[in-house]
């Protein structure tokens, strides 16, 4: 049985729930916390006036976390066009709405790649023999691949026409239309295609271990079908390490995506673009690194807390689901 009582006696688990919970609440309450200009069609960034020296504006009543000069070239990545560099973005607005994009990104990537990995791991583990060897060989081959190269490959080869404003709608081929319809960016695609392997390995190991357990042999002797054994017996017992890994993965994929956006890739985690806009002020103009603190501290802090929250949740789930490993 799961020891929920022990789970709730640990202070760090409460912290984890508090952090993850508040990110969900912020994401849900975004329209009230940071009202968009057009409530029916909320944008990722909000322009709040223009300044001609382009310098970030300190926090004021109108924008409680200050502003930062907008990025002008985001239109090609499907964001509302930025006309010029004089427009200023509201930091708080993107902090709030970025929570939505971060959760959406992290959960999408984790759920899809976990499902893929669990599928591969279960099939190979249950089939055993040759199938297992081949599938695990493929898994290990994918493990040697640095995901950043995949992001680049995808953006460079699959997305050039999508991000090219001069491509006519009828020129797109079937997979380009698909990518546009499901609204997936190169970073997301790369992370889905290249992060299912740990799940496959974890589940594979567990399934192989459980397959030889008496209760599975008993179920088979009673004439249960394969899919029933897998679904009813093997998966519930094999899935717990994958759940733990997945919880941690939500945070780390979002952090990775932000890092990729920061170095120049196209993504959907808008916190990343905010950090790109703040890049010049992190290093500091005129020697004081914190002269424009509002451009990068709130977003960085949100990102750190996002990672910490999911990480702690993973640790808590680990104690709950795999009590032996402590």
């Amino acid at each position: 049985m799961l020891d929920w009582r022990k789970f709730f006696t640990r202070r760090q688990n409460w912290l984890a729930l508090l952090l993850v919970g508040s990110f969900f609440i912020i994401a849900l309450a975004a329209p009230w916390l940071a009202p968009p200009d057009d409530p029916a069609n909320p944008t990722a960034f909000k322009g709040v006036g223009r300044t001609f020296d382009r310098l970030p504006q300190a926090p004021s009543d109108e924008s409680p976390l200050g502003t930062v000069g907008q990025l002008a070239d985001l239109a090609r990545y499907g964001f509302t066009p930025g006309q010029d560099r004089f427009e200023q973005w509201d930091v708080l607005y993107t902090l709030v709405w970025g929570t939505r994009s971060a959760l959406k990104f992290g959960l999408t990537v984790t759920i899809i790649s976990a499902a893929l990995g669990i599928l591969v791991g279960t099939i190979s583990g249950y089939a055993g023999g040759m199938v297992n060897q081949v599938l695990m060989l493929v898994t290990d081959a994918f493990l040697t691949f640095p995901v950043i190269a995949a992001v680049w490959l995808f953006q460079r080869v699959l997305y050039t026409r999508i991000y090219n404003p001069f491509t006519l709608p009828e020129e797109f081929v079937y997979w380009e239309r698909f990518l546009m319809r499901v609204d997936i960016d190169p970073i997301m695609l790369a992370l889905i295609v290249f992060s299912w392997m740990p799940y496959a390995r974890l589940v594979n190991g567990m399934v192989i271990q459980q397959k030889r357990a008496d209760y599975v042999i008993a179920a088979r002797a009673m004439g249960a079908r394969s899919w029933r054994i897998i679904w009813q017996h093997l998966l519930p017992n094999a899935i717990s390490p994958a759940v733990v890994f997945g919880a941690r993965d939500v945070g780390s994929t979002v952090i990775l995506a932000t890092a990729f956006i920061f170095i120049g890739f196209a993504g959907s985690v808008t916190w990343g673009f905010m950090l790109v806009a703040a890049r010049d002020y992190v290093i500091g103009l005129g020697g004081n690194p914190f002269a424009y603190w509002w451009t990068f501290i709130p977003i960085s802090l949100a990102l750190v807390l996002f990672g910490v929250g999911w990480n702690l949740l993973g640790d808590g789930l680990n104690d709950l689901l795999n009590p032996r490993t402590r």
Partner: protein
Amino acid sequence: MTPFLKYLLGRFIAIPITLLIITMVLYGIIMLAPPDERAALYLPPRLPSHLTATQIAFELEQIAAEHGMNDPYLVQYGNWLREWLGGYWGWSPTLRSEVLPVLLSRTAVTLELTFYSLLAFIPLGLLSGVVAGWRPSSRTDVLFRFSAFVGTSIPPFILGLFLLSIFYVGLRWFPPGRSSISGLTFSTSTFKAYTGFLTVDGVLNGRFDVTLNALRHLVLPVFTLSLFHWATLGRITRTLTVEEKDKDYVLLARSRGLKQRSIVWRHTFRNTVSPALTSTALSAASIVTGVYVIEVIFGLKGLSELIVGGMSGAPDAPLALAFAVYSVLLVIPIMVTLDIIKAIVDPRDRLATEETDY
């Protein structure tokens, strides 16, 4: 054949299979782009303005036919593989040069950073994990757990930025970037580039100032990269040590009157190293990803410069593909080296016929 040799052989046979699988997948992705699009790469950058659309289409068809772009997947892949094995990695229209020499010329910087980071975090991670795990809840353990928590919490690229703003802008201790080796060989005719590693070449040329300067440039990126992986490895080693230290053989060793130090380092350490290093080997690819990101943040002109330089524009498939395959070639040696270290330290590894611990 000894089991160890057999193990090594098995490990090396897996490499070409791995490469085959990964290149087949990558080539399949490239092939998704329509032939016209891929052929358009090879058109001259400025077309004569009198060409009509049909003429351009004809030209594209010619190029596609010439390069076999309409062939079935396996034929194209086979051709590519043959050329790849022959050392021709493709021609990049955006770089206006062959791909492989460009990749090779930038490897040293990336390798130097990767090498020093691995050298920093693997021994430190194992060491601190064992020391912390041997006495759980001691003051050392609490300190370790706190710093490991901090280390895993701060995203490396944000840490890098903050370190730059403190140590470069504020204190002016460590500069970003790196002096270029071609600059040195060009300006001083006596300086020879033996390895491309500035730290090593400085020593080999007797120019210790170059080595020192290179190290000064490396401190921040190496620290940034290592902290996260140190914390992860240390945590795993700690957990393993906690489990290991209560096992019967430790009790036996203690009852035989063996010294604490000898029990820790000669008995439990061997058992914890192997699974701990397995986890590092499995994350070798993410280490390389981290290296590229950190290179960009600190302005080191390694392989990542190709990424940043070629973010948009024409879909340069040959360059992207070569870069991807080359990155895999950076990851594999790290994995294999770690596997070999594991096998040397822990005999169970080289005797095991089937891998059971994940």
